[in-house]
């Protein structure tokens, strides 16, 4: 009796999980497919393309013919690399110091950091601070306000605390000073955790656009996500990238629809995320389960 129930349950739950997975996957496939067609196919098939018949990279070629996308991509790479490196450095400093159990004043120092998870100054006061420090329109406006991530400090601090104390003691007996201890022993031990945190911070930097919207008027440092957002609200994207001067400019085979251009932008904006996703997945599955085991 219960065996039959189990079979029904397995069938139903497999169907639901499969359905939800398709619901996640189909929009992604649709976006990619739409980015791979020219205007001819788009017209022929009434704009409904789950799989391109004549895949072409024309949308990508057009987007990269202009300088805007390239400039936004390089600005994003700079802010992501610089931002991730600095956040990781500062977060590690904070976590390392706070992991020293015997440090006088450790509790208030920890409290000092954790309070900011609960209360913040809000949009306008933070904007005024950035403005008064003359950071507007510079890449530092995208990096300095988020220089330490309080949650990551907590995670990394716990990681340092779990490194066996004997390791530290034997190093001190061997005559290692504080600098040697930190750089030669503790940080290498914490490298996997730092790599995981770095990946998450990097993804956050790659994805952010709201700070650029607030702090940058000048489009020189506009990141790719903000460019995508602006191009989605532009009604001229089709004309912008289908300009005359191209051979047979009005033949739909040589043109690309505004929809395909937008979908190509979405793919460009996600491609790096998809590239690091396997590493992310490895880390968060492992990390989350370990965290749960510890309670």
């Amino acid at each position, binding site marked *: *009796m*219960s065996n039959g129930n*189990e079979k029904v349950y397995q069938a139903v739950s497999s169907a639901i*999980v499969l359905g939800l997975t398709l619901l996640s996957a189909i929009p992604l496939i649709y976006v990619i497919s739409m980015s791979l067609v020219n205007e001819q196919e788009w017209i022929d098939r009434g704009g409904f393309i789950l799989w391109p018949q004549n895949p072409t990279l024309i949308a990508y070629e057009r987007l990269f013919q202009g300088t805007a996308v390239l400039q936004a991509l390089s600005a994003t790479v700079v802010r992501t690399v610089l931002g991730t490196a600095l956040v990781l450095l500062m977060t590690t400093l904070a976590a390392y110091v706070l992991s020293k159990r015997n440090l006088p004043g450790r509790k208030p120092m920890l409290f000092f950091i954790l309070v900011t998870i609960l209360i*913040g100054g809000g949009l*306008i*006061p933070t904007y005024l601070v950035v403005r008064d420090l003359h950071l507007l329109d510079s890449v530092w406006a995208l990096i300095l306000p988020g220089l330490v991530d309080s949650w990551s400090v907590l995670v990394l601090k716990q990681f340092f605390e779990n490194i066996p104390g004997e390791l530290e003691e034997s190093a001190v007996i061997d005559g290692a000073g504080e600098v040697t201890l930190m750089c030669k022993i503790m940080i290498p031990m914490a490298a996997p955790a730092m790599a995981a945190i770095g990946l998450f911070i990097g993804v956050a930097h790659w994805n952010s*656009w709201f700070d650029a919207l607030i702090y940058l008027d000048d489009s020189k440092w506009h990141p790719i996500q903000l460019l995508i957002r602006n191009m989605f609200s532009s009604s001229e994207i089709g004309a912008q990238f289908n300009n005359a001067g191209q051979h047979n400019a009005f033949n739909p085979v040589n043109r690309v629809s505004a929809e395909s251009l937008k979908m190509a932008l979405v793919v460009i904006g996600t491609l790096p995320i998809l590239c690091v996703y396997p590493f992310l997945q490895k880390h968060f599955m492992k990390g*989350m389960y370990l965290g749960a085991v510890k309670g």
Partner: protein
Amino acid sequence: MSISGPVRRPSLVIRMRRYWFLYLLFVPVIVYYLVFRYYPIFLQGILAFKQYKLSSGIWGSPWVGFDNFTYVFARPDFYNVLENTIVISLLRIAFGFFPPIVLAILLFDLRSSWLRRVSQTILYIPHFFSWVIIYGIVFAMFSNTGMVNQLITGIGGSEQNFLMAPEWFRPLIVGSGIWKEIGWGTIIYLAALTGIDPSIYEAAKVDGAGPLQRIRHITLPGIRPVVVFLFTLSLGSVLNAGVEQILLFYSPATYEVGDIIDTFVFRQGLNQLQYSMATAVGLFQSVIGLILILSANWLAKRYAGTGIW
């Protein structure tokens, strides 16, 4: 710990001098928090009670007491904004809180491990996309030329203006939020589920319990603390209805149903340059938010046995 009688602790100064290097390392961290985290909090408390004038700056501008607050609370559109914020948050909880729990249980119980692996891999992806990308995907699905309208017109229906129609705004916001986070939301429950002792399941099987009895008597009690904890936590943040997402999705046509506190502050503050008024709204939001999160934590401790701190 010592067994050789009391050891005199060295004085605080001596102990602190031993750690001078660590304090030195901590200085940049302190500077960061003071400048970018604490000073804005302080400014918020000042600016909300001043009438900011660009020419005189923050310190030269006159004090106006509670004028900014009385002005905001006299505006009828502010109540609309407040209502939208709470309604959208509650809709998110009502429709978005339980699906990850159900999905986590189904994934956990799946016998086919390849289906579990493949579906988990795909379901987690959207969590790592920015809201801009999510908007792009929603656009692909729901714009006038999008997939859904192609399907509707294909079967003879009439085109729906999903992205601009007020009646579709909240379903799209809540729905795309669920689409983005349903997979990621399962992780914490899956972690709790793996913590349940497998021998309990074995015993239930021997006793002839079916899948529904198993879920009701073992699985659900096993994740109950996490569920209660996350539920109270989500109640604690009802004044934050998702500014990035709404800023992308809304338009003047949908302000009426979509304008929330954060987007209101954004427009009034940064577009209209009403710094003081926007800061007052921000302070109001912070104070209520803090009260809510502290009460939520108290509730979580009381009913789930675990608080945030």
